[in-house]
C-alpha cells in the first residue's frame, strides 16, 4: 500500500493507491496515526502525518535532522506530553483505539508501546538482572518466573551469551553496544506489541550496530518496530517500509511512504529521490 501526500499550501489531498505487487497489502496495521500535528508552544513542528504501521514489520522513519521524526515517535507512546509546552492534534490508534482518548491510562499504553533511546541508558544503580526486570518492577506486575523472563529477553536481544555468567554485574560495566542491547532487553520485558527505536545505533560503533540490526530483524517476526534513523543505508538494510519526512521552512511533514525497496529504487517524489541519493540531508 502506498500512501502519497502531495503538499499544497492551501489544501491537502490524500490519495490512496493499491499496489499490486505487495503481499503485505492484506496485513493489519498494529498502529495507525491520523492527522497528527505537534506543537511546542506556538511552534508548529509536525503537520498532518497520517501513517500506518503494518504488524510484524519494521518501518523506518527517514529524513534530514530537525524535521520532527523524533517528536513523531514520542507521540506514539505518549512521551511527547512530558515537555511542558507540548501540544498535539490528531489520533493515534493502537489496536483500533485512540491512545489519546479521554480516560486512557498513559502508563498502560507505554507498557504496550516500548521505547529504546538514542543514548544507551541502563540504570546505573541496578544490576543487569534488575535492569531487565525494571519494567515489571516499576509497574508492579507479578512475574511468575523471573529467571525465565530475564533469559528470554536477553536472548531475544542477543545479549544472553555474553552476560549469563554475570547477571549481578552493574549495568554500567558493559560496553556501549552491550548497554544498548540491555536496554532493548529491558524494553522487551514488559512484552510490548510495538517497539519504538529512536536512532538506537547512532552512538555505537559499526560492529555493535550490525548486531543490533540483526536483533531488530529477529524481533520483527513477533512485533512491530518503528525505527528513526539518519543513516539511509541502515534504513535500507533494516526496514521493510519507509516513511520520508521533510521540513521545508515550516513544520515537518510526510512526503512519501512505501516499501523500502520502492522508496530507494523508484520513489514517486523528486524530493525523496534527491534525499536517498544523497543530494541533500
Amino acid at each position, binding site marked *: 500500500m502506498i500512501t502519497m501526500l502531495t503538499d499544497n499550501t492551501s489544501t*491537502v489531498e490524500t490519495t490512496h493507491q493499491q499496489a499490486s505487487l505487495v503481499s503485505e497489502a492484506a496485513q493489519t496495521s498494529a498502529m495507525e496515526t491520523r492527522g497528527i500535528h505537534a506543537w511546542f508552544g506556538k511552534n508548529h513542528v509536525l503537520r498532518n502525518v497520517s501513517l500506518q504501521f503494518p504488524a510484524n514489520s519494521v518501518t523506518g522513519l527517514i529524513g534530514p535532522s530537525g524535521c520532527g521524526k523524533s517528536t513523531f515517535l514520542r507521540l506514539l507512546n505518549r512521551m511527547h506530553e512530558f515537555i511542558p509546552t507540548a*501540544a*498535539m492534534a490528531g489520533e493515534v490508534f493502537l489496536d483500533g483505539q485512540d491512545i489519546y482518548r479521554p480516560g486512557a491510562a*498513559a*502508563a498502560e499504553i507505554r507498557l504496550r508501546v516500548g521505547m529504546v533511546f538514542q543514548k544507551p541508558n541502563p540504570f546505573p544503580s541496578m544490576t543487569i538482572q534488575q535492569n531487565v526486570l525494571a519494567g515489571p518492577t516499576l509497574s508492579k506486575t507479578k512475574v511468575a518466573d523471573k529467571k525465565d523472563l530475564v533469559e528470554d529477553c536477553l536472548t531475544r536481544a542477543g545479549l544472553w551469551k555474553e552476560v549469563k555468567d554475570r547477571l549481578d554485574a552493574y549495568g554500567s560495566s558493559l560496553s556501549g553496544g552491550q548497554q544498548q542491547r540491555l536496554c532493548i532487553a529491558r524494553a522487551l520485558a514488559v512484552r510490548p506489541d510495538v517497539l519504538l527505536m529512536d536512532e538506537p545505533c547512532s552512538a555505537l560503533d559499526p560492529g555493535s550496530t550490525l548486531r543490533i540490526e540483526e536483533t531488530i530483524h529477529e524481533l520483527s517476526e513477533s512485533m512491530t518496530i518503528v525505527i528513526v534513523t539518519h543513516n539511509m543505508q541502515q534504513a535500507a538494510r533494516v526496514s521493510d517500509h519507509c516513511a520520508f519526512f521533510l521540513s521545508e521552512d515550516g513544520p515537518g511533514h510526510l512526503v512519501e511512504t512505501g516499501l523500502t525497496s520502492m522508496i530507494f529504487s523508484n520513489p514517486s517524489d523528486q524530493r525523496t529521490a534527491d534525499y536517498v541519493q544523497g543530494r541533500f540531508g
Partner: protein
Amino acid sequence: MTTTFVPDTLVKPGRPWRRTHRSTLATLGFVAIAGLSSTGIVAVTGLAGPLGWYVGFVFSLAVLGFLGSFFRDRVVAIDLFATVLICTAFMTVLIPWVSIFYSVIKRGAPAFHKGYLTTDMLVTSSGEALNLGGLSHAIVGTLLMLIIAALICIPLGIIAAIYIVEIKGRFAGVVRFLTQAMSGVPSIVAGLFIYSTLVILVFHSFSGIAGACALAILMLPTVTRTAEEVLKLVPDHLRAASYALGASQAQTTFRVVLPSVRSGLISASVLGLARVAGETAPLLLTSGYFIKLTTNVGNGAIGSLPTYIFSALGAGTTESMTRAWGGACVLLALILILFIGARSLGGRNKGR
C-alpha cells in the same frame, strides 16, 4: 479506504493528557475525605490543636492511599499519595514563614508614628508610650556599619574571585576551600574574634568599625562565591580577544572582564549586605548598643537595628515588645529592599 480530512488551517493544538475536571475533582475529593476523617480522629482521640489534626491528616492519607491501591492501579495510587504528601509538606513549610511576615507587620504596626524613623531613644525609655521615641539611631548605625563593611569586604571579595578565576594561581583551590570554610564561621565567633582583637587591643571600647569588621568577616564568603560565579560566566573568547590585542592581564581584567559583569558584581555585593544586615550576635560583642543617634563609628558603642530589637525585647514591657516588633518590621523592610535591589541590578544570571 478513504479518510475524512480536516484542512490544516482548522486544526487547533490540544492537550488531551491534561487533567480532566473529573480527575481534579477526584483528587480534591480524596484530600477532603482525608481532612474530614482527620477531624473525626481528633474528635475521638482528643489529639489537640493543629498538630493533632495534621497528624490525623497524614495518617488518613496513608490509609486512604493503601485502600485506594486495591481499586486502582497500584502505581497510580502510590503516585497520587506521593503527590499529595509532597504538596502538603511544601504547604506546611510555608505556613510559619507566612506567619512570620504577618506577625512582623501586624505587631510592628502600632509602633509606627510620625517621628518613628527620625527620633532616637535618648530621652525615651522602652517602656514608655509608643508615640514617643523612635529608631533613627538604629537605622543610621546599621547603615553606617553596612557601608563600612561593604568598603572592606567588596574589594577583598572581588580580589579573591579574580585570583580564583583570572589568575588561577596555585592556591586557587585552597582559597576556594577556605572561603567555603569561612562561610561556616558562627556569627558569635566572628564577634568574639573582633572583640579580642579590635575592641580590646585597638579601640579599647565598642565601636562601629569593630562591628563593621565583624560583619565583613561574615559577608566575605558570600561576596567571594557569588563574584566567582559571575566571573566564571564571562566567556573565554572575550579574554582571548583582549590578550590577542596585546593587553596585559591587569588591563584585561579591569578594562574587559570586570566591566562586562559589573551589574552581577554589584548584585553579589548587595546580596552579601542583605545577609548580614540582620546579624545580632557579633554586634552585641563589638558595637554594643547605644540609644543616641550618632555617627561616631570609631569610638563608643553605636546603635543598630538588630541590637535595638534585642534590647527592646530585654526590657520586658508590652510597649517595649511592640517597639521590638517595629524594629523587626523596619529590619525586614531593609532586607527586602536590599534583596530586590540585588535582583533587579543583577538579574538572574543563573536562571532556571
